[in-house]
């Protein structure tokens, strides 16, 4: 039921266009909180879903079939503001790419199908939910009533617009009665599909249904002795307490200095395993001294007359300096990359 061009006169079309644009501006602002900053891709995919679902036809009495409008469904699933955006986008694409619904009537169509059905569907669903037990499954009957009323509401607004801006004098009462009667039937189909769809989603992923937020049972912790504590009251301790690194550093430094300066005097003067084997097999001759072989610390003090203990202390000092420099460099880079992520 997309209104074509020329159905309503120009002033009414412009007025509905202004209302639609204003509502979309508010919806753009509000929908951020409903989708936690994922607005564009999520709303776009939901719009594609509504577009696909509108192709599902269901029989409405003799020979005719209606299709889902999806206003109440989208409102219950993703929240009212996002639903308004989603339906407006669907209508925009249908008008521009599929020539379905007139361009000058775009504002009217957004008002009727995008705003009235969402607003009525959402408000009624919320109202019914207050009378039902606080369970996710309550969303199913609530969305049934919401969808059922959303369609005749859109029809009633359409009649109102037609009386204001339509070109003909039609008897208001009979027109309203016919439209309401017919659209209550269509609303029944809409209500069945909406409720069953919401039911299917609630059964699998209740966390995805916007109207069911806050209706899920609070998580509880069961202790071994059978007590139940609400999860919100349990404060989670961090896995390991952060301790000051200084004792470890100072201790480690001390141990290395003692090892290097004192214990190295008692170290074995024998060659290590590889050197021993090489000597036995006779290929040690082939190994040339390394490039720093002439430097006074090479071979741990045996060359330049520096005692072994002092050579060890100098080595530990240089290692610590290089290690500290590397550590500082890396930690700075990681905080920078964290800042980029945020």
């Amino acid at each position, binding site marked *: *039921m997309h209104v074509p061009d020329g159905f309503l006169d120009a002033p009414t079309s412009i007025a509905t266009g202004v209302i639609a644009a204003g509502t979309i501006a508010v919806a753009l602002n509000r929908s951020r909180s409903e989708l936690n900053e994922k607005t564009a891709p999520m709303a776009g*995919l939901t719009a594609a879903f509504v577009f696909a679902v509108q192709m599902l036809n269901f029989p409405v009495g003799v020979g005719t079939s209606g299709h889902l409008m999806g206003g109440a469904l989208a409102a219950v699933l993703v929240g009212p503001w996002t639903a308004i955006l989603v339906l407006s986008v*669907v209508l925009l694409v249908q008008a521009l790419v599929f*020539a379905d619904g007139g361009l000058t*009537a775009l504002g009217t169509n957004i008002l009727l199908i995008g705003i009235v059905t969402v607003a009525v569907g959402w408000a009624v669903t919320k109202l019914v939910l207050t009378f039902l037990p606080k369970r996710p499954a309550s969303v199913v009957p609530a969305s049934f009533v919401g969808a059922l009323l959303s369609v005749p509401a859109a029809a009633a607004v359409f009649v109102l617009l037609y009386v204001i801006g339509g*070109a003909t004098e039609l008897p208001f009462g009979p027109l309203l009665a016919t439209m309401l009667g017919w659209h209550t039937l269509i609303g029944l189909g809409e209500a069945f*599909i909406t*409720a*069953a*769809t919401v039911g299917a989603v609630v059964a699998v992923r209740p966390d995805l249904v916007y109207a069911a937020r806050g209706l899920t049972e609070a998580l509880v912790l069961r202790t071994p002795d059978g007590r139940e504590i609400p999860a919100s009251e349990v404060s989670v301790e961090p896995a390991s307490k952060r301790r000051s690194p200084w004792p470890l550093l100072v201790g480690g430094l001390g141990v290395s200095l003692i090892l290097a300066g004192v214990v190295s005097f008692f170290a074995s003067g024998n060659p290590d395993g590889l050197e021993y084997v090489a000597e036995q097999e006779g290929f040690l001759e082939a190994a040339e001294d390394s490039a720093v072989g002439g430097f006074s610390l090479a071979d741990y003090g045996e060359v330049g007359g520096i005692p072994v203990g002092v050579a060890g202390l100098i080595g530990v000092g240089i290692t610590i300096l290089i290690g500290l420099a590397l550590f500082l460099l890396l930690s700075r880079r990681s905080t920078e990359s964290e800042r980029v992520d945020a």
Partner: protein
Amino acid sequence: LYRHGHSPVHRLPAHVKVVALLAFVVIVVATPREAFWAFGVYAALLAIVAVVARVPGRFILTRMVVEIPFVVFALLLPFLAAGERVDVLGVSVSLEGLLAGWNILAKGTLGVVASILLAATTDARALLLALQKLRVPSVLVEITSFMVRYADVITAEMRRMKIARESRAFRGNSLKVVATSAGALFIRSYERGERVHLAMLSRGYSGQLPVLEVQQAPPAQWAAAGLLPLTALAVSITAWMTL
């Protein structure tokens, strides 16, 4: 609806076409309904555009079915409306209703044909760029571009679910089964949206898509596209003057 081609109409920048179409339709809607000849001229104008754009008549006719519900309403109006009655072919109908029905039929048809011409000569991507160019809020354009991009994917997914149902010997369209499929489709769409969002973040998405090409329209193209609404405006003014 897009029909690939290289006609002068295809080559016009999309935002120029959107503005021209909108102006044309507004002028048509504002034309007095008693000026029957004016609507004939409008139809002729659209026919000229169709010929220049090389869009065959059959292509347009088959896509006009979206209008049918309102055609039915327009045909019923002469019998429902109140006011002065006249006899047409021996049946008493309301004069007011007859005029209103004609009004809806003429303006609605012209609007639909004009929209079909736009959609047939402009691909969806160009239309999105046009929206951006016409200062539609960028978030809205982005949502629209995601919808256009994924509509095919989601519809194909729906078709696969239908094939899966039928290959398990399910036939007919029970409301419950259709609705369960719709629910599954919603979960799949939503989760795909989450995946797409994460994929975009990991490729450096910062909240706005980069604009790769800015299409500028030289005055000559504006003038060419303006021919349609300007001629229509002249017709409409003449119609108001002669009434």
